[in-house]
């Protein structure tokens, strides 16, 4: 049990000798990310500030190369913190070795010791602490019980399936009753079915162990289902911090809007129109009055009429008698709903229509009209992609 405070954390990977030269010589190197490059090196994480409360479950999420794993590894002590301060339980731990930070970590590839049995894997850290044998035994068996791996205690990791190995890795972390539990994409090596199952188990696990969690993933579903709060990152910067509800309903910018939610949010070029304290969005001549709440926020920021990017989630779009017309390109029957891929003007979009409300399946090539309500329309600035409400 501990709170973790990250203050303005920064990580710079200095150039390896010769790399700088190559960068200039070899033309454009493959650019996978838009990380900032300075004279010192590549900046992987910057201006990372976050107060994590005791027993909170924090999820760091973002596409690969966004700096989420680096941040986690800095908390673990596996990477140097280039700048900023890290406190665990009120203690500045920048220079403290990983083993003295009282943390445990679960790795993506499990990182079990291949030459030790499951029991020894779990007991290893306790043995190093010279804990009495009986106590070690009790703790290991307790953890094994929670994770349902008691019958595998004598096996070597090689003889286990992926899901079982992941349980052992988690077991190895929880026997130590760490102040902070770090998890680096623990489910991404599992197949889809197991992943769902393990996700549920991690949620259950929180009842058994009272500790702070920091969990890294690139999967937004995991982030939404597991996190008390989600930190969305991109190119080394935090994009938004908030509860799953908040980031879903009030994405701070276009990136968050696109990253959270499946299928992704539909985006349109539209106009924001202000009439006194009232705001409208206009799409293809179709005008929607924004909800009171949204209007109030926009008014508070004194947002004027302008061209905006309008975002509406597929599940928030309704087919209507009257509205913007679009053509059906593809219709995907998903069971409880139908995903319609529409083209409206030169924009492609997706609409989710519950099958309950439908009379007959829509056909490809049909023209339909759609509309949406004022409380689900997100307006983003054309200039900096930020949500105008913020």
């Amino acid at each position: 049990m501990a709170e973790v405070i990250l203050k303005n954390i920064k990580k710079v990977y200095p150039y390896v000798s010769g790399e700088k030269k190559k960068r200039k010589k070899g033309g454009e190197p493959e650019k996978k990310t838009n990380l900032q490059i300075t004279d010192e090196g590549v900046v992987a994480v910057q201006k990372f500030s976050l107060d994590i409360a005791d027993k909170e479950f924090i999820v760091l999420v973002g596409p690969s190369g966004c700096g989420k794993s680096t941040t986690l590894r800095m908390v673990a002590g596996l990477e140097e913190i280039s700048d900023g301060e890290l406190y665990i339980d009120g203690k500045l731990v920048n220079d403290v070795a990983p083993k003295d930070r009282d943390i445990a970590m679960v790795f993506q590839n499990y990182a079990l010791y291949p030459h030790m049995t499951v029991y020894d894997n779990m007991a290893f850290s306790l043995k190093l602490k010279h804990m009495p044998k009986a106590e070690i035994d009790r703790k290991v068996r307790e953890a094994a019980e929670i994770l349902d791996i008691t019958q595998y205690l004598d096996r070597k990791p090689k003889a286990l399936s992926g899901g079982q190995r992941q349980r052992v890795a988690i077991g190895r972390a929880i026997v130590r009753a760490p102040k902070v539990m770090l998890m680096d994409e623990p489910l991404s090596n599992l197949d889809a079915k197991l992943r769902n199952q393990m996700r549920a188990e991690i949620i259950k696990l929180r009842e058994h162990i009272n500790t702070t969690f920091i969990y890294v993933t690139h999967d937004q579903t995991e982030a939404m289902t597991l996190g008390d709060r989600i930190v969305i990152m991109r190119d080394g910067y935090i994009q938004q911090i908030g509860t799953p509800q908040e980031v879903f309903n009030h994405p701070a910018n276009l990136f968050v809007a696109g990253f959270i939610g499946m299928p992704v949010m539909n985006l349109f070029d539209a106009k924001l129109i202000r009439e006194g304290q009232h705001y409208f969005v206009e799409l293809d001549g179709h005008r929607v009055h924004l909800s009171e709440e949204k209007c109030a926020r926009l008014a508070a920021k004194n947002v004027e009429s302008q061209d905006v990017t309008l975002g509406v989630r597929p599940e928030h779009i309704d087919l209507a008698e009257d509205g913007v017309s679009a053509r059906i390109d593809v219709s995907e029957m998903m069971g409880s709903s139908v995903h319609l891929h529409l083209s409206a003007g030169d924009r492609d979009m997706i609409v989710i229509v519950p099958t309950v409300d439908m009379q007959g399946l829509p056909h490809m090539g049909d023209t339909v009209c759609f509309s949406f309500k004022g409380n689900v329309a997100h307006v983003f600035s054309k200039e900096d992609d930020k949500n105008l409400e913020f």
Partner: protein
Amino acid sequence: MHRNPIKTFWKNPTRRWALLFLGPVTAAFFIGFVWPFIQGIWLSLCKFRLISDAQFIGLDNFTKALEDPTFRHAFWYTALFAVVSLVLINILAFAVAYVLTQGIKGSNIYRTVFFMPNLIGGIVLGYIWSMIFDGILSHYGTSILMETKFGFWGLIILMLWQQIGYMMIIYIAGLQAVPEDMLEAARIDGANRWQTLFRVTIPNVMPSITICTFLSLTNGFKLFDQNMALTAGQPFIIQPDGSAVKTTEMLALNIYNTFYGSSNTSPGVAQAKAVLFFILVAGLGLLQLSYTRKREVQQ
């Protein structure tokens, strides 16, 4: 602003133990390799009887080495030997490996037997075969030491006996890595056994072929123990000036004899020969490395 002294976790605490982890190997490496190597280069440029009174004389030793008829003979003899043994060893080893991967009964036993000579040391091998060859040749009133061609082919046979098993192991590993379905696809496409072998199998074991080719080439060039034990360079041809050319003497043995033989050549010349020998063998090694690298890039 606060600056952290830790580089990354892995570097710092481990570095404190550098002396423990790297110390012993580094020390031994300097004694056993680096220093002798540097001193060897230096001495090849010196005139000396004792190392302590070595005098720099430039490239004189190299000129002498290159003018030495025994060294030149040894070079051509070695090159010929290396190429002939390379061709024979690889063809036979590949053939054996190919047959053994066709699901022949008892292939494990054959593999065991064929590999066995590889564990016997060169000196012992040489004496075993010198007994055998002399046992055969004595019926014709001659001996392996009497004629150059006996020495040459004798050493070839010895090397075949020793090396085929070794190369066979590498070829078997390569052949087993060729995906079965690729061969089946070839058969479905209408290729017969030979076409499959030459068009599909062999192109796919090129990596093994490269490795084995270079290995047998450098092995051939570096050969010493077997050469010394089988013929020790005999028979000799006496030159008009009274010096003797040992007709079956290979490069390594020639260098050894220049150093420690009874001849009055300065050890500087021997060291110069050794440097030339090193350049030759290292050149082959680097050639292999660049070849392997290029292939890895292509894959």
